[in-house]
Structures are given as C-alpha cells and as structure tokens.
C-alpha cells in the first residue's frame, strides 16, 4: 500500500512539475516562446530547427482541421447524445430514400471520446512545445549547442529510442483498446438498449440507474442481481479449477514424460501436442458434438448399459446422459474438457522450466534419501511455484475472461432449467463474459453488458492486486539484470 501511496504522490508531483515548467516558460520566455502558444513551431523556427517547426505546425493545423471538420459535429452533442430523431421519405422521382440530418447517439459518444483523446494528446504536445522552446531559448542564451535536425534524429535512435519504439504500438493500443474501453465505461451510464437503438432511436445519460438495477432485488425475480451472483460464483469456481487443474496436470504430465523410465518421450510429447495444433473452434465444436445428448458417447454409454445403470441409481432422469446439457454434469464436463485442451500446453511450459531445475538440489535430495513424493513436494513444487506465480495470476484472469471454451461448448446447446436465470437471459454455465456477449448479441442490452463488463474488471483488478501484494512479494525485475 505504501508503494501505491508513493506512486500516487510521484504522479501528482510529476504533473505539478509539468505545469510548473509551462508557466515558467510563458512568464520568462521571449516573444518566440510566447508566439509558440499560438503557432507551435514558432519557438523552434527562431532557433533554426525548421524540420521540427514544420512538423509541429503541421500537427497543429491537423488538430485544428480535425476539430473544425470532425469533432464539431459530435462533441457539442455529447451532453445530450443527440436530439434529432431520424426521419425519412422516399423520393418518388429517383426512388431513393431521403433522410433528415439525424443524430446517431452511438457515433456521437464514440467520436466525442475520440476527440477528447486527440485533444488531450494535442494539449500535451502543445505544452511540451512551449517548454521545449523555452529550453532552447535558455540554451541559446547560455551559448550551449543547439540540436540540428540530424542531432534530433540521432537522439531518437539513441537516448530517446524508446519514444520511437513506443509511438506506433501506443497509437494502436489507444485507438483499438483504450477508446473502446472508455466507451464501454460511458455506455454503462446511458440507456443504450433495445428500446434505444441508434440510428432509429436515440439514447441518453441516465446516471447510476443501471448499477442500481444490477444490485436491487426488491422481491422481483426478473432482476439481474439474482443471475449476477450465480454467474459470478461459477465464473470464480471455473477460473479456479481451470487454472489449477491444467497447471498441476501440466506439471504431472511433464514429470511423467521426463522420467527416466519413459521410452520415446519425444513421440509421446508430439502426440499430446497435436491437440494444441487443432484450432479450438474445431476441437471444441467437435467435442461438443461428441458428447451431445444424441452423440456418439451417449450411444456407446447406452449400449454398454451405463446410461441404464445411472438411471437406476437415480443420477439422471433422462434417457441419455446430459453431459453438456444439465447443470453439474456440464460444469464438470467443461472443466474436464478444459483439462484436455489446457494440459498439453502447460506441459510444454513445465517441461521447459523443469529443465532449468537446479540439478544439485535434486541430487542432494536423493542423497538424503528423499522419496519421489518428497522430492516433488519439497523441491520441484516450490521451485515451480516460485518461478510461475505471476503467470498463475495472469492465467486466472485469462480464465475469468475465457470466452472461447464456454461459448463454443455451450452456445445453442445448453438450456438452463433455472427459470429465474432464464428470465435474465443467463445460464448456469455462463461466465460473466459469455453472459454479456449474449446480452449484446441477442438482446442488444448494451447498458447492462457494460455494467457487467465493469464488474468483470473490478473482480479481475481486485484479484490481481491481492495476488500480487500477498503472493508475490517484491519486484523480481532487477534480479536477472
């Protein structure tokens, strides 16, 4: 917690510094620095850094054009998310449809966010160009060397190489991840649902209403709260089992394969790796048909009398074994099938790590007369855990968001028998992500999906924080350098 505190303090100190420099520059800068406030390249042109000046001014023109021609259409409507409803009429002469200049709430929201991000970046560039111009002025006054364009290029391949490297990837991340996530957060505060679908209808801000309806359970069964708690519960159970079964399964499998007793270990490993090579949508869709109610496994079970036996034991009430169609059965099957696809992968990782297992430790354990289990318990596992703890945490988060396995195995196959969950369009086997996917794809309930998405984030964030603070102490980064 102390770390977090100092990080926050450091953050604000940095911001204070940033603006402090800016105001100093304005106060003490010469005319060129002050002109930089208006024309971003001015200060640089004065010091003969023409390329930089042109680039910055061009950027400024770009931002202005963007604001005038693009942002101005959307940002002013951000407060209401649009007021003009679509109207249309067929032109009888051309047989073309003619529309009024209607508002599209979703695009208003998306492009407003886009504009805000552009402006934020522009503001940073603007402030930095002013402080940069002032620094140049100081350099010139002190008679220090002023970078030529060539020097600048040199800098960006040298000390500032990280800027060169990070620019494109960060732009990609901002456009394709940051803005969409911001949008999702904002949608949670609107009434964007099937009744308010752009372009034919508008949606608008509703404050915290959606969060309230998630947690309210005022005697009504048709609330999301009921389904939410159950889906969340299964999500956590699933993430726990999916992570640890494949993790330990992978270690055991790799120990088994790497044992001295194993003949032809490469052959076995290759056979197991084939299961990774088949794309998941093929292997999972296949397995789902394999275990379907009228599928081949059921036929075989019925033939050997297993189905009848289970029926007589009262374990099933149907004429087939509901591998993927009844709660309990489906939960167990999903975890088993996940072991099937996950273990070979973890086996590969464990094999690699165990190759690095310090041989002297194993040797001394053997000398001390430790049996296999003790070696595993006191040497192999602690080593593995120490090395892989961070990946365990990220695997857990990945499993919370593991869309593919659940969706491919249960979509269109599993029908819930819990009426209350069905009333909220949820199923017992749904993870939060598959539930929200279903809400957006089939019910266009974007507002509730967004709320659930934020909840997923909170669950993951809490888990990650706790795990990193309690399980993995210290920062290992420096150790290997």
């Amino acid at each position: 917690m102390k770390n977090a505190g100092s990080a926050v303090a450091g953050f604000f100190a940095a911001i204070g510094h940033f603006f402090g420099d800016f105001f100093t520059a304005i106060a003490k800068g010469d005319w060129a620095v002050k002109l930089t406030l208006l024309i971003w390249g001015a200060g640089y042109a004065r010091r003969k850094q023409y390329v930089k000046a042109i680039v910055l001014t061009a950027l400024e023109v770009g931002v202005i054009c963007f604001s005038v021609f693009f942002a101005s259409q959307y940002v002013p409507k951000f407060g209401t998310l649009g007021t003009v409803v679509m109207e249309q009429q067929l032109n009888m002469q051309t047989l073309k449809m003619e529309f009024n200049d209607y508002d599209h709430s979703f695009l208003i929201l998306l492009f407003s966010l886009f504009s805000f991000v552009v402006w934020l970046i522009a503001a940073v560039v603007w402030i930095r160009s002013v402080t940069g111009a002032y620094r140049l002025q100081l350099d010139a006054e002190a008679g220090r060397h002023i970078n030529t364009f060539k020097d600048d290029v040199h800098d960006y391949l040298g000390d500032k190489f990280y800027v060169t490297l990070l620019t494109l990837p960060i732009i990609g991340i901002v456009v394709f991840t940051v803005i969409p996530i911001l949008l999702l957060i904002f949608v949670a505060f609107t009434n964007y649902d099937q009744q308010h679908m752009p372009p034919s209808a508008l949606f608008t801000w509703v404050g915290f209403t959606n969060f309230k309806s998630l947690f309210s359970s005022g005697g009504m069964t048709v609330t999301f709260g009921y389904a939410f708690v159950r889906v969340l519960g299964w999500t956590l159970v699933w993430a726990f089992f999916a992570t640890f079964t494949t993790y330990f399964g992978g270690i055991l499998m790799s120990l088994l394969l790497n044992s001295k007793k194993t003949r032809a270990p490469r052959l076995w490993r290759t056979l197991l790796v084939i299961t990774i090579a088949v794309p998941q949508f093929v292997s999972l869709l296949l397995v789902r048909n394999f275990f379907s109610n009228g599928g081949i496994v059921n036929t075989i079970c019925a033939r050997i009398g297993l189905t009848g036996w289970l029926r007589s034991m009262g374990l099933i009430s149907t004429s087939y074994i509901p591998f993927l169609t009844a709660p309990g059965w489906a939960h167990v099957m999903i975890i088993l099938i996940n072991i099937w696809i996950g273990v070979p992968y973890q086996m590969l990782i464990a094999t690699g790590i165990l190759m690095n297992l310090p041989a002297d430790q194993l040797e001394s354990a053997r000398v001390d007369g430790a049996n296999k289990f003790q070696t595993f318990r006191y040497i192999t596992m602690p080593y593995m855990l120490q090395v892989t703890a961070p990946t365990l945490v990220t695997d857990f988060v990945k499993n919370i968001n593991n869309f593919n396995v659940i969706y491919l195995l249960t979509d269109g196959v599993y029908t819930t028998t819990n009426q209350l969950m069905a009333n909220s369009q949820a199923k017992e086997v749904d993870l939060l992500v598959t539930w929200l996917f279903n809400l957006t794809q089939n019910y266009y309930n974007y507002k509730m999906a967004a709320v659930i998405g934020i909840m997923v984030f909170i669950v993951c964030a809490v888990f990650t924080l706790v795990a990193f603070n309690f399980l993995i102490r210290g920062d290992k980064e420096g150790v290997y350098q």
Partner: protein
Amino acid sequence: MKDKKIGGIVSHNLLIAVLCVIWLIPIVWLVCMSFSAAPNMNTSTFFPTEWSAKYYVQLFHSDTVNQFKAWFMNTFKIAIFTCIICTCFTLMVAYATSFGKFKARKPLMNVAVMLNLFPGVLTMIAVYFTLRTFNLTNSHIGLILVYSASSGLGYLICKGFFDTVPRALCEAARLDGCNEARIFAQIVIPTSRPIIVYTIISSFLTPWMDFVFAKMILNAGISENYTVAVGLYKMLDKSLINSYFTIFCCGGILVSVPIAILFFIMQKFYVEGITAGAVKG
C-alpha cells in the same frame, strides 16, 4: 528386483500410453469422420460405416456454402500481415520496457496490466464502429488491424525474455559507440531467437483461431471474404450441419496440419521462448 524394475517401466509407459490415447480420441474421431462417406454426423458408431475421401475432394470444389480455397488464402494473407505487425510491435514494446530508462515506464506498464483486465468481447462493438468510420469493415485490412493494432499489450512474456539478456553485452556495445537502435537490431534481436519464434507462431495463429471478431467485421455475407474460422463455423449452422459436417471435419484437419507442422518444427524454440519469458515475466 530386476523384474520389479521392468514391471515399473512397463506400467509407467502403459500409463503414458493410456493418457495419450485419451487425449487423442477426439482427434482420431475427427480424422475418422473426415473420411466418412456420409455427409452428416455418425452418432451410432465410432468409426464410419463406409470410408471415403470424397469430401476432401468436395472441399476444394467451391459451392455457395463452401469456399475453402478462398478462405484459406484469405486467412493466410491476414495471418502473414498480422504476424509481421504483431511481432514488430511486441518486440518494440518489450525492448522499450526492458531496456528503456524513462520516467513513464512503470506507470505505462501498470496501465497495460489494467487494460488487459477488461473483457475484449465487449469492446468489439466500439472497434467495429471505429473501423466502419474508416470504411474498413468487410475488409481484410480491418481484420489485420483488429488482430495486430493492440498487440503491444502482449509484450510481457517477451519483456521477461529480454530481461535475461546480459546487460554487460549492451554496455560494451554502448562503449563502442553503438546507439540504442543498433543494440536493438544487432545484439538483442539475434540473441532472442526463441522468443521471436514464439511471438511469430502465436500471432500467426490468431487469425486461424478467432471467429468472434471475424464474424462481426465480415458481416456483408460475402462468403469468399470469410476466414477459415468463420466459414467452417457457419457450416455447423443448424440448417447446414447435416450436409456439411464431414466437410467441416475435412476443413478442420486441413487447417490443423500446417499448424501442427509449424509446431513440430518450432517446438524447441517455442518451449524455450515461452518458459524463459514466463519465468521472468
């Protein structure tokens, strides 16, 4: 004593064999089904009642549903470009975060961790509309962007690997007057073959595996534009599964074979890369 030992070895290998059989049953079933002479799924016997390779032939004769050749080429094209961009981005970010010394490094890494916690499926609709604004839906460029633009976020394993590259080597180079760009290109990249192979394979595979984004972005219903995943997924549509299940199996096999070969060739690097990265990542 010796008998016991041999018995131990036999039972040990038998156990492995049993496990391998369990793991391979569905795959064997897939192969068997693909050689079935019937177009639909066989639910009464494990092996097809009649064997035939005719659906492999049919897979390559396009009809209104099945355009496998086109799908394969599309996916291949997308995969190549995705692979190039992803690999570059990942290496760039990993190098900057591992070797770079700048104030914003830690905060940026924390932000990256946070961004990874949001469910990707929900951001899909925003990504879709962003692409539509630039008229990039129903285009392979759009899909390439979707798969690769955010790839910088997956830098962690690669950074873990870079952290193990001896710093002394870089220092020496720096003293010789090398700038960062040359250190990156001439020292770090050549010593990082395993992690590069790992990154290349995993990014090359993304377009073959994903169907959610592809289905959303290729929404004009033009079958020739699909990727393999979307096309094969649609074959299992309720109205088609009976006439296309076997073809689906053939397609599944044909997609898996190149991936499997890729895996076997690169297996060593793959294991080295991911473990080295995971250990320190």
